[in-house]
């Protein structure tokens, strides 16, 4: 038996922390850390629901594995992009991403 309030509260905390990280940071790699936290909170919500609802397809657990895989693919492409931007511009400040001169 578990009180579902605890995992659901952790889901909310992780999502809020991730949103703060995405909005408050200027370094592109740190923005990606915020994105990872939001994805982690989505995974925790799916595992919580998958473990507590009687689901013959085990959708919660399977979809969490899928989300983890997609997050790995996403961060590989995103970090390659960050390194490419760094080589072209000399910094990875997202507040100056649209400017031609850095």
């Amino acid at each position, binding site marked *: 038996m*578990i009180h579902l309030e605890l995992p659901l*509260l952790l889901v909310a905390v992780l999502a809020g922390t991730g949103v703060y990280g995405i909005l408050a940071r200027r370094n592109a790699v*740190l923005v990606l850390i915020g994105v990872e936290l939001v994805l982690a909170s989505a995974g925790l919500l799916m*595992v919580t629901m998958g*473990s507590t609802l009687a689901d013959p397809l085990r959708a919660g657990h399977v979809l*969490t594995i899928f989300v983890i895989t997609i997050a790995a693919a996403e961060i590989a492409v995103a970090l390659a992009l960050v390194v490419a931007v760094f*080589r*072209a511009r000399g910094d990875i400040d997202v507040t100056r991403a649209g400017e031609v001169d850095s």
Partner: protein
Amino acid sequence: MTTHDVLFLLVGLITGASAVLSVTTKHLVHAALWLVVSLGALSGCYLVLGAELVALVQLLVYVGAVVVLVLFALMLTHAPIGRSTAHDGSVTQRVAALIAGAATAALLAATLISAFGGEVDVQGGSTGLLAQRLFGTWVWPFELLSLLLLIALVAALALARLATSPGDAVDAVATAPPEREPIASRTEAS
């Protein structure tokens, strides 16, 4: 308080606290290291919830691969070692981000807890059933994911190679001021 509650409270506190630290720390490298702690403790949460396979995949993929990639990217982009504030937004931006983050957390917590709150049985476990479902019902999405991973690998390689021609890779990183040659001409040259 049941046993599950106590265990989840322990790992959940570590997860939440290190997540907060990873988005607020002034040291760039520490942010990635706190992310390791947070995602590692999150796999502990998965274990408490009875999802052993998901916990192991989380540990292997995130702590083993993703965080190493993040650390590599920090090193390759000349992240400053030690305290630095250059990577933080202005005070206004941070206050706005705090409001947005707190609002998101409050909204999610209120909605989810009022919808699903209560004491329930944990019925995870049974990796055998999960494997049957994964390679039975979910086998086509699973195969599509392997294709996605291949595409992501090729795309990451292409992105990393497009950005610079073979000769000046070292110069471009060593002399920080950027080269302004458009990407198209450089790919022709290479």
